[in-house]
């Protein structure tokens, strides 16, 4: 009996997490007003089913086997004073292997990225060293030296491919380090991101263009001009797949591939933005700027929650699955706990990587590990209580076999979400649009007009070649980031023209039968 009470209490505590947002749901009063009994019954049934689903999901939490990690101290001891060495002495043997330091002084500073399951890591040294390895199994996948600048590395949908932003272009390598693709449209890229559910590789670079490339079809989905100059700060919101860009004028802009202008523009700092991170629930954002501030934001209201002063500007930010905030500044890494809930007086953990400059830090998913790339190589730290203890094998599974990986790849491709569905509120799909009627009709009209504009006949002046040939002019004139049917058609036409011209010139060289201009004056008869 007592056990049952406890179970009920646990379920009641967990329940709110699983209840889906209920906008547009009818209240009991409104439900009473419905005269159609069949409709009423259906609505009540749906309501009942969703409630039941939430309670069952909450109940299933009892079955989860793993507990999150923790670090507790007694008396006057402080958690932030505990060093990795002390931790190493106090944890089990398997976990001691998670603390390591790779000394790679010649090619640093390094940027790094974990796969979604957290098993594999790829590191890229700025001077041209790229390596990917299975850090849990201590197995090297590949190691290559590209002899040019490497600015960022990023895993694609699984551990078979990763993208590297190099000196001029972005390259995609496979797990053996073989160059698979060179993405010529992505030029001088500083930061890469990958949206796993949309199969979109996102890049932003010196020219300030944000580009979305579909890695499953190879199509360039969108090219957006930020108009805010060179950009090297980017983070994705994992909850709604919106990209957050930090700019040198102190603003953070939010982008979706469907809009040529930012969805939201926030003035966050008085100096250039150095780093941005968004948490996994999509509620909070952390930014740091050259003005020495570290600010925490609520991105539901776009209002600041807390701000901290950093002695030197934080160069890198990251948020773990359980909501720990990692800050890399100078040679230091500081980890904050519950930072978004209330102002903290002291950090949770500290680490000094002496004599280096930290470039990139990343929490490892599903593990209590923080990876940091710095000028002297790559290090791995234990941060207890950072990773999600219970994994979902169908979502990201560090222990998956090859067969399982193949299966998962096929399924994820089948479930690939179209880029059109990237919006600020991802729960909007399937809901009734409750905007005012005027707005809806206006939108509808605009849409129809746009459609009509696309359908219109393509009228081109008869200028065939040169820089301002009509096709090229058309391509130049239209909005560059919109790739519609018309544009594809024009591109195709242009390609055909080019091909035809090429063919013509080749033919000219080979065609011997054609009479030469001066031949008419010669006595010899032409061979037929």
């Amino acid at each position, binding site marked *: 009996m007592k056990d049952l009470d406890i179970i009920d209490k646990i379920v009641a505590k967990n329940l709110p997490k699983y209840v889906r947002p209920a906008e547009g749901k009818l209240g009991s009063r409104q439900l009473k007003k419905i005269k159609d009994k*069949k409709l009423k019954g259906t609505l009540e049934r749906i309501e009942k089913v969703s409630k039941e689903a939430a309670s069952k999901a909450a109940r299933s939490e009892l079955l989860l086997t793993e507990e999150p990690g923790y670090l507790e101290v007694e008396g006057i001891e402080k958690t932030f004073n505990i060093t990795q060495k002390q931790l190493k002495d106090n944890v*089990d043997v398997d*976990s001691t292997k998670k603390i390591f330091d790779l000394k790679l002084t010649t090619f640093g500073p390094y940027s790094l990225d974990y796969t979604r399951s957290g098993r594999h890591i790829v590191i890229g040294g700025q001077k041209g060293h790229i390596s990917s390895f299975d850090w849990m199994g201590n197995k090297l996948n590949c190691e290559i030296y590209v002899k040019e600048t490497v600015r960022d590395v990023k895993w694609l949908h699984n551990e078979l491919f990763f993208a590297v932003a190099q000196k001029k272009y972005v390259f995609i390598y496979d797990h053996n380090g073989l160059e698979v693709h060179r993405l010529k449209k992505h030029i001088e890229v500083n930061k890469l991101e990958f949206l796993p559910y949309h199969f979109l590789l996102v890049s932003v670079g010196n020219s300030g263009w944000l580009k979305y490339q579909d890695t499953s079809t190879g199509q360039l989905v969108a090219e957006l001009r930020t108009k805010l100059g060179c950009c090297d700060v980017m983070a994705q919101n994992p909850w709604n*797949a919106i990209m957050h860009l930090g700019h040198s004028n102190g603003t953070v802009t939010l982008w979706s591939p469907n809009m040529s202008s930012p969805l939201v523009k926030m003035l966050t700092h008085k100096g250039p933005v150095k780093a941005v991170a968004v948490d*996994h629930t999509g509620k909070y954002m952390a930014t740091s700027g050259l003005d020495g501030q570290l600010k925490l934001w609520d991105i539901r209201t776009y209002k600041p929650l807390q701000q901290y002063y950093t002695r030197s500007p934080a160069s890198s930010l990251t948020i773990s699955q359980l909501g720990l905030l990692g800050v890399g500044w100078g040679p230091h890494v500081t980890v904050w706990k519950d930072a978004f809930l209330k102002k903290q007086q002291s950090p949770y953990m500290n680490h000094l990587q002496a004599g280096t400059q930290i470039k990139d830090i990343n929490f490892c998913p599903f593990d209590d590990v923080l990876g940091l790339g710095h000028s002297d190589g790559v290090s791995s730290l234990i941060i207890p209580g950072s990773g999600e203890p*219970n994994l979902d094998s169908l*979502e990201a599974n560090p222990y998956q*076999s090859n067969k399982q990986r193949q299966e998962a790849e096929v399924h994820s491709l089948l479930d*690939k*979400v179209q880029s059109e569905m990237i919006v600020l509120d991802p729960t909007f799909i399937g809901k009734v649009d409750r905007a005012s009627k005027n707005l809806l009709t206006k939108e509808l009209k605009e849409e129809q007009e746009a459609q009509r504009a696309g359908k219109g006949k393509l009228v081109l002046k008869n200028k065939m070649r040169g820089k301002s040939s009509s096709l090229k002019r058309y391509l130049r004139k239209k909005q560059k980031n919109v790739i519609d049917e018309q544009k594809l058609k024009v591109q195709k036409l242009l390609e055909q023209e080019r091909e035809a011209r090429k063919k013509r010139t080749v033919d000219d060289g080979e065609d011997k039968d054609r009479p030469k201009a001066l031949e008419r004056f010669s006595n010899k008869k032409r061979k037929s």
Partner: protein
Amino acid sequence: MKVKVLSRAASEYTRETPQDIHKIKRNYDPKLHPLEKAREYTRALNAVKLERMFAKPFVGALSGHSDGVYCMAKHPKKLTTIMTGSGDGGYGICQIEKQYGRLSDIKALLKVSVVVRQRVIYTFLVEPIKPAIDHHRNDPIFATSGSQVDIWDENRSDPIKTLSWGADTINTVRFNQIETNVLGSCGTDRTIILYDLRMNSPLTKLVLQMRTNAIAWNPMEAFNFTAANEDHNCYTFDMRKMDCALNVLKDHVSAVLDLDYSPTGEEIVTGAYDRSLRIYSSRQGHSRDIYHTKRMQRIFCVKFSMDSKYVLSGSDDGSIRLWKAKASEKLGPKDYRERAHLEYQEKLIERYKYLPEIKRIAKHRNVPKAIKNAQNTKRIMLQSQRQKEENLRRHSKKGTVPYQAERKKPIVERQVLSTKSKTKLTTNSSNSYTNNLASLGRFYVNTMKTIGKKQVLRIDPSIKRTMCKRCESILLPGVTSRVRIKSRPEPCYQVLCIECNTSKNYPTRKGYQLFSEKPENIFRSNESSAENGEDISIIKQTKKKYNKNNNNKEI
């Protein structure tokens, strides 16, 4: 210092031997499953596309009859047995056997006029009019129809009961499967009559605007039945309250000839003269699916199989076709995971069915061109009728042209045969003619005109003047037309059609003659025979005229 770090044993998460199944850990925390709505929508979209991709409803055709298949009966207890009757006087008992998805053809083909329950027990002499027959669910009683409904006992050679209520010919009789003593019939005089075997007279009679071709009782709701009507629709009625239909099943573009309920009472299959069969949910107004093939002719009988998984249709081309009731269903056994997956897909489609893209894909059907064209024409016709009615409403006094419910439109009259007075008539509405019979009248006039045109005949002015030239309704002075006498510009009487406000003047001045009354237009047969031998060319000229007049006289 107390510290705990996540440290997983790989053996907890991986299988021990390759023979084991993979260990799957689930965590339903929404944080680990971002973009769930978008992903679910994508899955729903894929599911609906797959559903349409696998929609291959045709299972097989049973041939054997040399003429069209005009009636069909299913065995109430044996799933695989059906019985069919053909226009060549033969009937067949089909044993449908599923052997690797193929069908064995008709097993036996005997020649008897009427047979009861597979075995030939008796041969009955029934009137030579196209009879319909239905057997009682439990008792050894069956009903036949002709000019009246006869109730027969299997052990007697004469009908034990004869029921009639003024119909010329009765097309169908159908026993109720729950209230087994109740049966319904429909006749050529546009009536549906309900009987009770425990009484000696019929119960009620319902007159619809057009003829009913078949009725089917709902096997789960004893009091509901559906009538397949000539006006392209089916109407579901509650026999206790027949002044309004429960449901109208639209979508066919030609007369519906037969229908049948699924054993669950949830679905209805209909076969129509437009060479297609449709499946309806019994509570919805439009069809869920349409089946057709290139070679299938007009469908005269349809049946739902007793496991509600298959649909049978017998058509004019002499073959019986077997269809899946759910077009995309996979035949054969399914393992647990496959079933779960299919259920999940179904649920997804159900959940997102109102989203435009999914709705579009789920609704799309390839329809033969003939049906598509007929649909377009029908839409235009109905639209113009509605417009006309709306115009009339707009230009007449408020309330004089009321809106009429679609479910009440087909009902002309309802009669109850009470025990006290022999017939008590309860008409549906006061001005029933203008509301209900007008369109029927128009239909008949139109038919008459069409026949006249086809045969190149003139309608006699005395008949022609009783019809409106424009809207083709019958002009009854005071009811549908207004007659006024006028003296200017010339003496005449004016007939104004109230339906469409068309007026026509008929001169009444002295000495006025109609075209046909003028002496030079009256054809004399004597002269023509005299001319016959002399000049052939004249005959050729007058031949047309002759034909016309000759036919006119016959009328």
